[in-house]
């Protein structure tokens, strides 16, 4: 499952030898994230975000388990129990702010990880399975985050739960039954809160399991790299440890600076003031928006305002789900033989258009549902679907890629003695 030149785990300590015979867990770690995993030597800092996402998952599980020790999932006391955590529990404010901002930073990291995948076409064969599992992780994380946001039982929690479960209500015929079944009531109340808490506790462990599959699948072909040229020889790789542990360590330290700045200096900047008002089924906040990380998809949901065969509401729901599901098909929509955006001039331009497009959707998703934001988000939504479903397949057929380097070694060091014998001596990055 790895390159033939991968270093082998050879314990010298008798205890480790014994352990290796009976339970080769150290060997597993050694081969997964240790010296036994050869990694392309040219990974940029954009490759840090996988490890950071793993860190965020652990961070959320640890702080989440702590919060669950003090939180009470009951609609009568949930809000007060959160305030109890903030005021009375030792370090409770730190735990809660670390968890709330941890969710936001988890999404920042995941988005950068995904956008890295877009730019370098990390979804392409032989890494389709890694990508598919990754999209599953993203969906699970969105579900978990949504349910977590309901737990404080503030105004945004309540109305968020109502609006999001209302999406299912848009399904013809069975929608209303599904919505009532999801909530266990006509509107979000104690039953919904309790089940969301249960699932919010369960899903992170499911995510952790799927993350293991993600990493397992990664170790079959090995990591991709910024040139998109596959590893050819030992000189193309470096052992994960110490090279990438050191690099990820630096990435983690920088990440923590940004994270701590939010936790300690502006812990509520990414939240919404209305969630400090207890849930009130009789009064809707002036502006109902989800957490910021859902804004682009929320904008897509709201962009459909016109009944065409199907009701506009249903179009919105379909489009919102489709906007993520389309990622599942990327490996087959983009048929270009070249992976990296570095060598794909046309693709690269459209990638940046997509980034701007998603930024526009992000902005519109957080704005009031009024003109001109709706019209802007309609244009942006149109581009979003055109990009993935129309532009990507077409440019992958018509584009003339720039010449690729012969190997990773050549890209890094400027020359590769094997390249002299080969035919391709393209420009190095």
């Amino acid at each position: 499952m790895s390159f033939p030149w991968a270093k082998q785990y050879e314990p010298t300590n008798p205890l480790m030898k014994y352990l290796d015979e009976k339970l080769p867990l150290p060997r597993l770690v050694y081969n997964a994230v240790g010296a036994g995993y050869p990694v392309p030597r040219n990974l940029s800092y954009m490759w840090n975000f996988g490890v950071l996402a793993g860190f965020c998952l652990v961070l959320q599980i640890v702080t989440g388990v702590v919060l669950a020790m003090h939180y009470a999932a009951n609609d009568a006391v949930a809000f007060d129990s959160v305030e109890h955590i903030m005021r009375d529990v030792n370090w409770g404010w730190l735990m809660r702010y670390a968890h709330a901002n941890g969710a936001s930073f988890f999404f920042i990291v995941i988005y950068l990880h995904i956008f890295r995948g877009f730019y370098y076409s990390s979804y392409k064969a032989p890494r389709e399975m890694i990508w598919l599992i990754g999209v599953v992780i993203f969906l699970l994380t969105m579900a978990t985050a949504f349910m977590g946001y309901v737990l404080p039982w503030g105004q945004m929690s309540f109305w968020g739960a109502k609006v999001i479960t209302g999406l299912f209500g848009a399904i013809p015929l069975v929608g209303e039954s599904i919505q009532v079944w999801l909530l266990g009531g006509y509107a979000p109340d104690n039953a919904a809160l309790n089940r969301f808490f249960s699932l919010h506790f369960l899903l992170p462990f499911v995510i952790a399991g799927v993350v293991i599959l993600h990493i397992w699948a990664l170790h079959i072909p090995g990591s991709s790299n910024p040139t998109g040229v596959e590893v050819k020889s030992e000189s193309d790789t470096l052992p994960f440890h110490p090279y990438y542990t050191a690099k990820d360590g630096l990435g983690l330290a920088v990440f923590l600076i940004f994270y701590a700045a939010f936790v300690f200096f502006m812990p509520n900047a990414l939240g919404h003031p209305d969630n400090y008002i207890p849930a009130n089924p009789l009064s809707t906040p002036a502006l109902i928006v989800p957490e910021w990380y859902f804004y682009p998809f929320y904008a897509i949901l709201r962009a459909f305002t016109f009944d065409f065969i199907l009701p506009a509401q249903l179009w919105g729901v379909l489009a919102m789900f489709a906007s993520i599901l389309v990622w599942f098909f990327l490996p087959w929509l983009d048929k270009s033989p070249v992976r990296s955006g570095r060598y794909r001039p046309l693709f690269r331009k459209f990638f940046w258009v997509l980034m701007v497009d998603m930024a526009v959707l992000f902005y519109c998703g957080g704005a009031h549902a009024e003109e001109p934001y709706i019209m802007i988000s309609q244009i942006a939504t149109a581009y979003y679907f055109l990009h993935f479903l129309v532009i990507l397949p077409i440019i992958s057929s018509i584009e003339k890629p720039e010449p690729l380097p012969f190997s990773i070694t050549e890209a890094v060091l400027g020359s590769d003695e094997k390249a002299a014998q080969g035919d391709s001596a393209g420009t190095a990055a």
Partner: protein
Amino acid sequence: MATTTDTADTVVAEDGVRRRDFIEIAAVATAGVGGIFTLIPLISQMSMSKDVLADSTTELDISALEPGQSIKAIFRKQPVFVRNLTQAEIDAANAVDVDDLRDAESLADRTLEGHENILVVMGVCTHLGCVPLGAAQGEIKGEFGGYFCPCHGSHYDTAARIRKGPAPTNLEVPEYTFTSDTTIVIG
């Protein structure tokens, strides 16, 4: 390639730890220190929260407590018994030779000076923590006229000292003070 990774493992014996190794060790050690400090909030969040700590004293008005009567109150989420002893109960307690007891304490040891008739004890059997009977009217007071624990048959006398049964020590007397003749503050 072979030479690129070996340096990390190489120990240079002559001049001990070299500078480059020192930086790597320092970085890992710093991460370790950070990890240890992170444990502080993770561990101390489980100790008593401020509201629990604030609830750690109980104030009782015993002006209505007649001799022979007891009241049950709650102190730190556990029952506490306050009994106004009759003269007969005081005499019975004082008649016992303290040295013969499992847990040698006299009634005077277990009450406050000037208020020898007011016995304040935790309603928690020292055996396994059940609540003994005898504080409420009509409850069995056990063979020695004090408290009786129905779980495993511990009998306490009128000074709430263990006299018979498995309990190892007398019912615990919490810390308390009289803030006036009729008011006690426990804790």
